């Protein structure tokens, strides 16, 4: 699914400044886009606008050719055909893995088959009967991903998917998630405040600050030609070695 955002603005308190201010970007079919920026810059808000949990003040959002949100129209989240992985995973504590994954499936007959397929995709075959509290953090995350993919969404949204994982697991999960998303062919928007996540996973990175987009482009481009000092400084924090020279990148 292709996603267009056109001059989208969202203000929470009508006296305050906008949380998201006149932003535009597109996500191509099958692309992984990463929203990157410091705390409070409006990443979550952008994601929730895409999901339909927040109503925008002005601007337009299209999924493929279809208008799904504008100033006086908001397609409810359940009709948008999106999947979402929450920061806290939001697995239903009263349901086991099987029931969680098949929550959004209407057709009873295909439930078992689908669940098995998804569990195989996330490498957790045989976990059907477990309850969320019986899973490790990384396993919970993969179940959440499987659940998000269960309804065959065109777009998958992830808010800080790695913030509850330790460094080692995080490295592993980045690769894993990238593989799963690429295999299932959905478009994805991943919110993170860790530049390394974005540089490793994304096809395109958007750097935000105070509700506006500082720069967008492929990782390589942002990394090599930061447009502003802010972008340079932000990516610099990643402390990644320059792939060409092998020296720590300094803005």
């Amino acid at each position, binding site marked *: 699914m292709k996603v267009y955002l056109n001059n989208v603005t969202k203000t929470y308190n009508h006296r305050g400044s906008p949380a998201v201010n006149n932003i535009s970007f597109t996500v191509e079919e099958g692309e992984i886009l990463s929203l990157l920026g410091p705390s409070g810059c409006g990443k979550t808000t952008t994601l929730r606008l895409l999901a339909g949990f927040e109503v925008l003040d002005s601007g337009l959002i299209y999924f493929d050719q279809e208008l799904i949100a504008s100033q006086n129209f908001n397609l*409810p989240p359940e009709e948008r055909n999106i999947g979402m992985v*929450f920061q806290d995973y*939001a*697995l239903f*504590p009263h349901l086991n893995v099987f029931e969680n994954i098949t*929550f959004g499936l209407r057709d009873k007959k295909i439930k078992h088959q689908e669940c098995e397929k998804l569990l195989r995709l996330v490498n957790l075959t045989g976990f059907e009967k477990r309850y969320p*509290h019986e899973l490790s953090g990384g396993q919970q995350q993969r179940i959440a991903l499987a659940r998000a993919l269960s309804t065959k969404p065109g777009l998958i949204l992830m808010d800080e998917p790695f913030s509850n994982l330790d460094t080692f697991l995080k490295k592993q999960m980045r690769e894993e998630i990238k593989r799963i998303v690429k295999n299932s062919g959905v478009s994805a928007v991943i919110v993170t405040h860790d530049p390394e996540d974005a540089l490793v996973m994304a096809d395109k990175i958007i750097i935000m600050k105070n509700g506006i987009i500082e720069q967008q482009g492929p990782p390589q481009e942002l990394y090599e030609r930061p447009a502003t000092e802010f972008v340079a400084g932000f990516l610099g924090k990643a402390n990644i070695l320059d792939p060409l020279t092998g020296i720590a990148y300094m803005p």
Partner: protein
Amino acid sequence: MATKTKRALSALLTYWNNRWHKPPSFSFALLGFIISLMMALPLSYVILRALGSDKAVWHRLFSTRIPQLLWNTLSLTLVVSLLTLFIGVTLAFLVERTNLMGSKIWRWLLVLPLVIPPYIGTFSYITLFGNTGILKNQYINIYSFPGVAFIMTLYTFPYVFLLVSAALQRINPHYEEAARLAGLKPPQIFLRVILPLLRPSMGAGSILAALYVFSDFGAVGMLRYFTFTSAIYTQLIGRYDRSGAAVLSLVLIFLTFVLLFWEWYTKRNKAYYQSKGILKKQEPINLHYWRIPALILAGSVFLLAVALPVGTLVYWLILGLFKQITFSEFWKYTFNSFLVSSLAATASLIFASIIGILHKRNGGFFGELMARCCFAGYALPGVIIAIGILFFANSYLPWIYGTFLMLVIAYIIRFMPQGLQSFEASLVFISPNLEDAARSLGEGPWGVLRRVIFPLTLPGLKAGWTLMFISSLKELPVTLLLRPAGFDTLSVRIWLEASEGFYIAAAPAALLLILVSIIPIRLIAGRDGGYKNEGVS
């Protein structure tokens, strides 16, 4: 023209959206408005009625009854508050901080008086020391100020006991250690460190006790002591003076609000002593030769508040069984009680879920307003709610006037907040992300309610239902005022038999009510049976 209406509509919509944290659907909001209107109506109506009544009525009451009633009510409240403070703090300290024998058991036993409706305790004491009591003597007169104060204290000190115990458990031990190092002796530490730290909880506890004294009807009524509640009742039932009853109610509403304001004021700067995390266990203070007196104190409080009244009731029950009193009547009013109470609890639960979601999830000004409206009936004495409903139904809803529906509505208004509290308490543990997750998987708002919120709040809903059911079952003044002619309930029977002196007949009802009231204690203790990662997800 069309653009004008369009603009007005869009302005209205903006206003609407800004008054919510997250706007609900119109139909759901409308439901909420209707419920909160119903909840706030009787109170508003009493106030209007009182303000609208003749100046002469006000003048007459202020020059005759009100001064005496104020004196009766306030002096009783003051004495009971002081006594509950003394007993409650002493017992809490003994149980939490000393080597009192069996302190773990006392922690439970000393809360049990809350399980006994005070009018049942009073009933027991009347059967012992009343006019036709079996232990009647010239030294003990329970139809007196000391008698009333004594009984009220017995059944309200647990408020102080509970709150102060909880505070004692949370005091940071470092304060006391610092005082120790500064050279203070234990009694000085108690007076200069612990007691000041306990002040907020002592205040809150004694205000709860005072609020109870304001609202109690059964105990004062049975002992023929006139506070506002019993005076309002006789004004209405004995003298058919509705304006008078409304005026007295307004004074009582005013007094209650003063207390509530005070409570809010003291709570405002609470909890500066709280310590987070796991505290190391404090070494209990050795009572030495005070151990026996301490044990006697705790024991006699329990004896007087629980053992003696319950024992008396059992005695009457056995006597009744021997005399082969028939129980057919008993089953009839038990059925009545259970019918109205379960109807009220079920309806309340539905209302509470709607208001709870509007309050906690949609939030904002309107959500807050709705929740506030619903608490109106809870904070005020039942007599006032009953009068409000009586007036209102009489003028506007003649078709429910005199039916048991009035009782059901009154119980809903009176006790729905209990359900609201326990529903909201379990709702706040459910991350809104779970609801969003369900929406993103294709569920609509009602589906989310059914498949996510309902199963996850089920423990809270069950607890809420039970609480509301039991409160309705025990309720006395509202039931007396609103029941249809001939519609007797358990509580009504106890009231009637107490005055008619036919004690044997009331004992089974009283014991049944006490038994049923024990259930919530277990419920509260078993609260942690929820989902293990509730807090995380």
